[in-house]
Each structure stands twice: as C-alpha cells, then as structure tokens.
C-alpha cells in the first residue's frame, strides 16, 4: 500500500485559536479516506492546508513522497490535487460547461501564441476539452444544463458541478468538503454511487462529510478530529464504536442507528 498524501504534525494557528493541532494523517493511494469531527474541529482548515490556500503554522505535507508544504495552490494542482468547497464557490458568471473547462487549466497545453494564431493543434485541443467537459457533465447528470449560467443553478446542482470541475483536472487526489450537504437521501445515494465510480478511476478521495451513513458506506479509513486534534482513526466500524468519537461527535443514538444499518 503506497501513501499518496502524508501529513506530519501539521498545525494551524489562528489568532487565539489552534484550529489544527499536530495532526498526522496518511492517505493511501487509491483509497477513500474520510475526515469527520464536530463543527469547528478543523476539517476544512485541514483541507485548506492540503490544497495550499493557507500555509501551515508548523508540520509538513508530502504528496507521493514530494514535500509540498510551501507550494502554491496552482503548483499542487499541477501535482494532482483538486478540491471542492464547503461554501460552494462557482465561477457564477460562467456557464456550466465553462466552469468545467476552467477546471482543465493545468491539462491544456496550447500556448497563448497558438490560441492567438488559432493553430490546428489548439483547435483540436479545445474541441477535445469541450467533449471531455460534456462527458463529465453527463457523469454528474448536468449535461442538459451545460449552457446555463452556473450561478443560476440550485444548490444541489452547484455541488455536483463543483465535483465535475474538480474532476476535470484529472486529479490524483480529490478533496471533497461536504459533498452531500444539501442533498436528500436519494440524491446522496446517487452521489455515493458516483463517487465510487470516481474512486474506480484511480483517484484517491479525501472526504469531509457529516452524513454518517454516506461516510460509512464509502470510506476505507476514517480520521476523526476534535478541537483540531486527531482523536481516532481506523475503519468505519472501529471509529463508530470508539467511545471518544461517540461522545464528541456521533451521539449514542446515531451510533446505534449506524450499527443497526451497517451491521455490528
């Protein structure tokens, strides 16, 4: 089992608050890894550290053996890190398909000069990009909305669009911040199926989610954060039965329900 992403003693200090506190996480290549924890535990902050939007206060991050701690977001994207956002962040003035094509930024190779001169190579590449974008939209069931202004989509549709946009860059590691928020159970089930397909494409998933059924279903391994610290880690079942996790996060009722639904 190779480790794709590894965080060592990563911390993030905000004024008056240690949001992530000496966290160690290893994400195995090809796995679906979940991060759960109470509100404000530091999950999104951890994502920001991994994707490079915030610099860690201390600790190191490595991707596939290369240290990326100080790399800019765009460099990490080139290395294969993609993400979605908890508070949806579309390019809302662009159309749906343009959003997806923007996600391909690092993969398109034609230079500005080629675009300027409309070289055949450039045109070929644009056509292929468009086709690929439509394919992705098909995949997240938004193909019929490809030409709409993305800001006009409903909340759930925007979430799916974010996933398509993140996938467009052919990432090796996809960070999903609460992808099922705002979806009803049926939609959530469909999303899970979709993500399983993604995982089958050799994309490693790192996932933050509060919908426990969803997390238990999908994740090979789960890390639990509380007040910025890692309090547990293991398989879905190990975590579910961990008293510290039940106390801090799940509550007995949910834990019982989960146990019932997913076998003891």
């Amino acid at each position, binding site marked *: 089992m190779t480790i794709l992403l590894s965080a060592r003693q990563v911390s993030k200090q905000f004024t008056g608050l240690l949001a992530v506190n000496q966290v160690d996480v290893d994400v195995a290549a090809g796995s679906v890894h979940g991060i759960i924890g109470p509100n404000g535990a530091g999950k999104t902050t951890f994502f920001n550290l991994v994707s490079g*939007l915030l610099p860690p206060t201390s600790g190191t991050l490595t991707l596939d053996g290369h240290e990326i701690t100080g790399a800019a977001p765009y460099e990490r994207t080139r290395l294969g890190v993609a993400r979605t956002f908890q508070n949806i962040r579309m*390019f809302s003035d*662009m159309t749906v398909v343009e959003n997806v094509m923007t996600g391909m930024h690092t993969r398109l190779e034609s230079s*500005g000069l080629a675009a300027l001169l409309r070289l055949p190579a450039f045109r070929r590449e644009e056509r292929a990009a468009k086709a690929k974008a439509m394919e992705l939209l098909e995949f997240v069931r938004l193909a019929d909305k490809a030409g709409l202004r993305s800001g006009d989509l409903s909340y759930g549709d925007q979430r799916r669009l974010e996933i398509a*946009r993140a996938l467009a860059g052919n990432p090796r590691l996809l960070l999903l911040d609460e992808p099922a928020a705002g979806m009803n159970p049926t939609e959530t089930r469909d999303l899970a199926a979709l993500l399983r397909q993604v995982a089958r494409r050799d994309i490693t998933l790192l996932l933050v989610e509060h919908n426990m059924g969803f997390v238990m279903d999908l994740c090979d391994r789960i890390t639990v954060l509380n007040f910025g610290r890692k309090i547990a880690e293991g398989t879905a079942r190990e975590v579910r039965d961990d008293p510290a996790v039940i106390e801090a996060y799940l509550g007995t009722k949910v834990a019982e329900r989960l146990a019932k639904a997913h076998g003891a």
Partner: protein
Amino acid sequence: MPIWLDDFLFTYETLIHALGVHGLLALSMYCVMAVGQLSLGQAAFMGIGAYTGALLTLNLGLPFWLVLPLSALAPALVALVIGGPTLRLSGVYLAISTIALGEVLRVLYINAEGLTGGALGLSGIPRKADLWLIYLLLLLGVVGFWMVGRSKIGRAMEAMREDEAVASVMGVNLPRYKLGALIVSSMLAGLAGCLTAHSNSFIGPNEFGFEMAVTILSFALLGGIGTPIAPVIGAMILTALPEVLRPLQDFRLVINGLIIVVAVLFLPRGVIPFRLRRAP
C-alpha cells in the same frame, strides 16, 4: 484629394487620432480588468511611453519604427519593477496605490526640468503617428485579445476575476497572470502615449495624471469588459461626445455627464454587456 475631403480630414484629424489612441488605452485597461484588477496606473504608463518616445525622437533622433517599440518597453520595465509589491493589493487599494505612480511621476517630470522641460513640457515633436498605424495597432490588439480570450487563458482570466482563491485551486498561476496582464497593459499604454506625443507634437506633465487615469478607467467602465471590443467602443463614445455636443455650448459638459449617467443606469454592465462565449 477633393477639397471637401481634405477639409473634413483636417477638421477631424485630432479626433480621429484620439479615437484610435483612446481605443488602445481602453484595451490596456481591459487587459488589467480582465484579471480582476482595478488599476489607475494606465495614465502613468502612457506618460512614460510619451516622454520616452518624445525624448528619443527629439534628443537622439531615432527613427520612429525604433522609437515606438522602445516606448512600449520602457513602461513594461516599470511595470515589472512595481508589479511585485502592488499586485499583492486588491480592489480599490490597488487602484489608489497606482494613482501614486502617476502622481510621483508628475512631480518628477515637473522637477527634472533639464530633461523634460518641466511645466513647459516638450514641444515641437514631429508628427509621425500616421492614422493607419494607430488603427492597425488597435485592430491587432482587439483581434489578439479576442483570440486569446477564447482559450484557456481567457477562462483563467475570467476565473480570477470571479474568485482568485478558486482560480488558484484550478491551477492558475495568479502572480504570473497578474504580472503578465500588467506588463501587456503597460505596453499598450506606452504605445498609446508615444502615438499621442507624435500626433499632438506637444506633451506636458499634467496630461498623464489623475484625470487621465479616471478617463481611461471610464472607457472600460462605460463599454463593459465582456469582450475586448466593448471598452474600445466605450472609449470612442466618451471621446466623441464632447465634440458631438459642441453646439450645446455651456451645457455641453452637463449633458455629457447626464448621458453617462443614463447609459450606466440602464446598462450597468456596460454599453456592450455581452460576454465572450468561450465554449460555443
């Protein structure tokens, strides 16, 4: 040439020049705004181009085909130097701090009397900016932006305009794009400055200050930045208006202002509110 045509061209020559040059300035503004920056430094870049061009012609007697590119290069160098620190700023902070460039240069022009003629400016600059040249450059600019706009670069620029953090997560190298845009825009402004100097035959230190900066910004604001042609049209409207309204005399500027107000109220995204369709 028939006399009436000669008269016509004579009468409107400055205006026709100005329409073209202002079009170039509008493009230079477009270039910065397309990556979500708001700059009031374009007038300053224009001034650098104008003084560089004028001095090269007057003092060294260089041929115009050499003067023109050098006048684009000079502001580009300045853009390169100031780019790093200023591009950390955003929105109005960036805009106002770029006014600083213009104001500091103005003081410099005024005080470096030996070179720049101080408040008296430089006069007697030969008139070498032919109409065809101005409009050819403008055309190249518009077409260039149009072509590049319909590519991943265009998408990246629009992405930056909407949300920088997300654009960076999409893999857009923000500093590079910002600096690139600033440099290209400074070059366009420099060209415009050089062309102005060589068609007006006189330049002075006060022509590239705050007022001009705001005028250039307003080209893009009135036209809109959905497509590269929009700011150019904005520039042409704003340049022609005072002349078209000349018969109104006293009330000329009042009506001019009111037209702008009404235009923006009813077309808040610019006179050409459409955006470039990048994925047909």
